[in-house]
């Protein structure tokens, strides 16, 4: 995420280190070196022990039949877990769920967030109140929203059913129908995240160059041309930043799906890769296979991020 953030902030490492090194005795340098080590060591130790070590260990475990409840025995099984993953029936379902959930979230929350930001980028009464309200769900936990929205979507007595009945429509079975269940978790997550994309786009719009707007006005550009040729190119770093952060966040959603559907209905109705890692490791007691799914997910994420960075680089030099 670092390149994303740097591109978007335009603070590329900030101003050069603000202090030109005055000539110093080596005693001072050594003391400064020791102090830096002391300040950094606890954090580095924690990251090494609980991020990088398990990342590598997870890779090792993916080639074993490890069981999380018997920490002693993990027999190497070669690539058996990977072969199993490629051949299993639920692999396609779960990959499909992950792709639908992730891309619907990224696309819809970014388009809606941008549209809302464009409409509210003018002096309107109550705009700040609306901004706070839209952002509020983003600070609330996914677990709480998942639990509460189960009742919003309840097909017998929920809010959605009541509203649909009032306009004479019938209510889909959000709890039993796999397609509608996936629709439910995706919609809930977009509802929670809209404030994030909206607020970031709004801030980016308010920091744009208005001399370009004026130039477009003088040239008599239509609103659409103005948007396409003037606004969108300026929003490019923001769009790039959002596409990466929203993607990384939505691929990792566990709490909301657990609270709302427990990965169901019908076993894997709303199971995504992340949820499958939990399910295989802690419910089916097959941590080796869970580690395999986690590794595959990590590689997919790395590949997508790499492609996004490349696309961004090409775009900015073109």
């Amino acid at each position, binding site marked *: 995420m670092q390149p994303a953030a740097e591109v978007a902030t335009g603070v590329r490492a*900030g101003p050069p280190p603000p202090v030109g090194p005055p000539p110093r005795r080596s005693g001072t340098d050594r003391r400064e070196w020791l102090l830096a080590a002391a300040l950094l060591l606890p*954090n580095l130790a924690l990251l090494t022990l609980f991020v990088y070590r398990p990342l590598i260990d997870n890779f090792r475990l993916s080639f074993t039949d490890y069981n999380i409840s018997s920490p002693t025995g993990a027999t190497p099984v070669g690539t058996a877990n990977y072969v199993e993953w490629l051949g299993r029936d639920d692999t396609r379902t779960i990959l499909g769920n992950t792709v639908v959930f992730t891309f619907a979230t990224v696309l819809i929350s970014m388009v809606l967030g941008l549209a809302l930001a464009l*409409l509210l980028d003018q002096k309107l009464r109550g705009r700040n109140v609306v901004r706070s309200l839209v952002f509020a769900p983003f600070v609330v936990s996914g677990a709480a929203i998942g639990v509460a929205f189960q*009742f919003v979507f309840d097909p017998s007595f929920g*809010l959605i059913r009541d509203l649909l009945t009032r306009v004479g429509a019938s209510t889909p079975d959000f709890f039993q129908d796999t397609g509608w269940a996936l629709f439910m978790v995706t919609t809930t997550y977009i509802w929670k995240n809209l404030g994030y994309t909206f607020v*970031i786009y709004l801030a980016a719009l308010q920091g744009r*160059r208005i001399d370009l707007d004026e130039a477009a006005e003088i040239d008599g550009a239509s609103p659409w041309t103005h948007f396409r040729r003037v606004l969108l190119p300026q929003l490019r770093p923001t769009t790039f930043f959002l596409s990466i952060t929203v993607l990384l966040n939505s691929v990792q959603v566990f709490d909301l799906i657990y609270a709302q559907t427990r990965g169901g209905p019908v076993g894997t109705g709303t199971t995504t890769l992340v949820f499958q890692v939990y399910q295989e490791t802690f419910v089916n007691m097959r941590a080796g296979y869970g580690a395999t799914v986690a590794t595959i997910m990590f590689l997919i994420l790395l590949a997508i991020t790499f492609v996004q960075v490349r696309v961004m680089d090409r775009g900015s030099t073109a």
Partner: protein
Amino acid sequence: MSTHLQVSQGDRHRTPLMSVAGYAAMIVVVLVIAVPLFWILITSFKERQDIYVRPAQYWPSPATTDNYRDTVTSIPFPAYFRNSLIITALLAAAKITLGVLSAYALSLLRFPGRNLVFLVVIAALMVPNQITVISNYALIAQLGWRNTFQGIVIPLAGVAFGTFLMRNQFLSLPGEIIEAARLDGAGPMKLLWRVVMPMSWPTLVAFSLITVVNEWNEYLWPFLMSDNEKTAPLQVGLTLLQNNEGGNNWGPVMAGTVLTVLPILILFLFLQRQMIKGLTAGAVKS
């Protein structure tokens, strides 16, 4: 973005049509966000038989606080609340301290390999939690730390994003002031406390707020680490409540949800500007 000549005052294209569209969008989005929140709130004040009626009631009559009483007494909600406070306080203290110290070393101290160390710290942002839980779970279980606070807190205490945020802040400080303090003979730690920190409060506040919000909302790791009220935080307690009551008795579940999110929403109400700054940091330089 850093090169804009003039900041838009938000009154471009003030055509009547755009104003009308703007107000229409505001009304739609308010309804979409507020109606479900309102629904959750009124359900938490309804009597049980009023929850299961068709068509639904949009105002609790009679209103009752029984659901809240049930939530607080029938499940150990006060214990979950206490656990959430402890976990959030410990993690926030650890992360803010480690983040500030790491950022300071990585921005204003000079030592060989500084950029490499910085890369090592922020590359951790690319590693999803889910890939580390299996191995971390095994390690913590072996130490006998399941259902303990140290088992929940220590594996989450490393800080990558906060280091990035604070380092950017420290690098943006005017070099002349820092140089002047150095020439006055201020040692590195005195420089941090007396010069660097006083100029960095807004960013530190934003960093602290997002840390509190994120740790309060943390789910997966505490959920795996704790299965009883000794250490489980509110979010985990809420899904346990849902296991016991959900479907048949939404009232207490909705009351539990309201109590779980209320502390964060109150914080948001008072400190939203700083919170938004922190949560959207990295995207737009304000």
